[in-house]
């Protein structure tokens, strides 16, 4: 019986390319019978009956898909996550390395640089952060190329990412700019706090005007195999977010294996995350190309299974234009161009922006002005 569950649980339908068309057709949000496909006997099914109150007021109902029923119990959730196809680490690394060899030049490079700038969550997450520091960062985000001759107007960044206590400062600075205010929450970066503290943390940031919440998952619970605890925590934070978008930080550096990255990605998406994010930036390794590739495969498969587009945000360690372009190539060749949009792909970064600006100027004018000509904020 366990065997059957495993076999069927990973039969996630994927987008089917239509012959003669350049893009894969979008699979309709078809009813998904993940557990019923397996021969699970009725005694087992009744033993995993849904607990009252457990399933209300979360992202599942809104998404309206049977797939989300896998989270009805610890047993079904575990069975589903462990039934996902494995990741061969050597093969995944090789694929990422191959994608990194793509040579992006001239017009393609110019497109990629501007897109990367528009995708940046310009971040400061230091104990030493002050309102002054955040105001400077907001100014940089609004007009990244101040004082630099870059030929054409430079787009603003996607969001400013800060600690909850500084949200009011950023909200005031960015009013009317279209730049989002993203706040980390849930006892960032460790997540080691009681749930009600995490919820309060989230609610405070949203109440102060944050458009986006970057939460951390409970890695301790995940590694201990308590997937439902992790799931319910994400559901609770999502509820606390209200209208704000939720980015779920997996902290892949602590999950260690690619199989875990894939499972955590699915877990976060099932629980209602709008984005899955690699890292806090406080743990080494932070974002890597293979880890991001695996998360992109997960959002691609999730979209095929449910019709929902979930975003991906690599964060930490992406410092050069060359790196950023490699990520964009990976997005393009894994998920396709619908994800080449700040609504579905972000970079969590700080120093990356200045390198993008210098490369942008180099493309436009043929020369580097040098690091003293870009602003340090």
């Amino acid at each position, binding site marked *: 019986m366990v065997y059957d569950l495993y*076999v069927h649980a990973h039969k*996630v*339908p994927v987008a089917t390319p239509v012959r003669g068309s350049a893009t894969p057709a979008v699979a309709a949000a078809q009813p998904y019978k993940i557990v019923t496909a397996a021969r699970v006997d009725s005694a087992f099914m009744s033993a995993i009956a849904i607990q009252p109150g457990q399933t209300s007021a979360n992202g599942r109902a809104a998404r309206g898909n049977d797939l989300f029923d896998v989270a009805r119990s610890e047993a079904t959730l575990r069975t589903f996550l462990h039934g996902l196809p*494995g990741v061969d680490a050597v*093969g995944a690394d090789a*694929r990422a390395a191959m994608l990194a060899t*793509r*040579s*992006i030049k001239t017009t393609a490079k110019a497109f990629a640089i501007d897109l990367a700038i528009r995708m940046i969550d310009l971040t400061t997450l230091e104990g030493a952060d002050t309102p002054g520091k955040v105001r400077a960062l907001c100014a940089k985000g609004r007009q990244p190329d101040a004082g630099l001759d870059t030929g054409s107007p430079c787009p603003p960044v996607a969001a400013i990412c800060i600690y909850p206590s500084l949200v009011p400062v950023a909200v005031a600075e960015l009013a009317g700019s279209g730049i989002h205010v993203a706040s980390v929450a849930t006892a960032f970066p460790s997540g080691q706090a009681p749930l009600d503290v995490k919820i309060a943390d989230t609610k405070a940031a949203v109440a102060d005007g944050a458009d986006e919440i970057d939460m951390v998952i409970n890695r301790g619970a995940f590694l201990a195999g308590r997937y439902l605890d992790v799931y319910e925590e994400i559901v609770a934070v999502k509820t606390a977010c209200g209208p704000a978008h939720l980015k779920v930080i997996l902290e892949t550096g602590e999950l260690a294996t690619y199989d875990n990255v894939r499972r955590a990605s699915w877990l976060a998406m099932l629980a209602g995350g709008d984005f899955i994010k690699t890292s806090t930036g406080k743990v080494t390794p932070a974002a890597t190309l293979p880890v991001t590739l695996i998360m992109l495969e997960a959002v691609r498969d999730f979209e095929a299974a449910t019709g929902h587009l979930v975003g991906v945000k690599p964060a930490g360690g992406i410092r050069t234009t060359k790196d950023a372009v490699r990520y964009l190539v990976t997005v393009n060749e894994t998920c396709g161009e619908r994800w080449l949009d700040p609504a579905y792909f972000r970079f969590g970064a700080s120093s990356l922006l200045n390198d993008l600006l210098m490369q942008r100027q180099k493309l436009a004018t043929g020369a580097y002005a040098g690091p003293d000509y870009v602003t340090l904020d």
Partner: protein
Amino acid sequence: MAIFDYAPAPESSAIVDIRPSYGLFIGGEFVDGDSDSGRFKTVNPATEEPLAEIVDASPGDVDRAVAAARHAYDRVWSRMPGKDRAKYLFRIARLIQERSRELAVLESIDNGKPIRESRDVDIPLVAAHFFYYAGWADKLRYAGFGDDPRPIGVAGQVIPWNFPMLMLAWKIAPALAAGNTVVLKPAETTPLTALAFADICQQADLPPGVVNIVTGAGDTGRAVVEHADVDKVAFTGSTEVGRAIAKAVAGTRKRITLELGGKAANIVFEDAAIDQAVEGIVNGIFFNQGHVCCAGSRLLVQESVADELLDSLRRRMTRLRLGDPLDKNTDIGAINSAVQLARIRELSEVGAREGAEPWSPPCDLPARGFWFAPTIYTGVSQAHRIAREEIFGPVLAVLTFRTPAEAVEKANNTPYGLSAGVWTEKGSRILAIADRLRAGVVWANTFNKFDPASPFGGYKESGYGREGGRHGLEAYLAH
């Protein structure tokens, strides 16, 4: 138009200096062919433009080359201490690395393979082979072939057009390390890197006659393998020609190794890592346009995951970039010759006629040159010709199986036995299946992976003898 359109990123061909015509490399010098020799042109398969005029060597030319090799063998190379032979091989390996960009561009121009492959796979492996066998040259008594293994003499070597320089390395590096001298004939459509290698031999001050390169077609190859003073024959190419060579050599003192065709099964079990298996399938059949003797040209996929896997494979194939071999973003280059293109077309049409269903991603083929879109055939059975005959092109036959036993039975149900692939996350299954596959190389959760330390060769009609690794020395040592 795609919003993220990769702009052309061509590798510059300015680094290569292709002469209008080339001679033969005999006795350490470039010489003209004799009065019986002819000339032919080698063309760029991506543009059909002629690249250079090449000598079609006559039997008399081959005679001169074998005489030069014999002289060098008797007077210099067989007597030279292994540590000194090693110095030359290490020098050659370093020169290959130093000239790697030039060699990669030259290989892509003459063969049609993408620069990404010649740059990242072919040429690095060529250098690695010379480094590897250079290391063996002074350690032959520890190779397991007796206390004092001796070289055999003059080796006549005939190589194919699919990996021109890599096949040259597989042939020449172990032969020289063991103390033999060689007469090598590159394929008629891809002689340029072998001639560049001749230049490297001069640059390395390799003693004259140790390496001789004679260009030409089938008749020249026949003259090499049938020459009375050749002691050892090594051939890589089609099973048909291999048979003819085996007949010609039968009853003589000559030793022979053959590395011939294949129709490898790439077996994907339901518990495989699907995304990586898809990469492996693509790499197995579309690497080098499928011009790979060990290509995974038969996909055997377990029925329970067949639809899911094929959907993923089709989606992945829409990302393949076909075009200019020198563009750094090209995944699929040109078919090597008009003859090969005709053969791929013929077999592909047979597949459709026999009822298999073809699928290719939307793909614009350039107007000039030899091109074939990557294609998969579903609904293929063991009885179809495309499941039995080597196509040697970017065409994959997809078959399904229900149980591991059926997978093994189908995989082995071929006259060939060069390679196979197994995809499963279950380690015990890898070992059990690999044990029962009648193939010289079995890759587990990868495909088309090569290493100079790893022996390579076939079962059944895929040939005999092993190249690479310690095993590869045996063919060049008397013991």
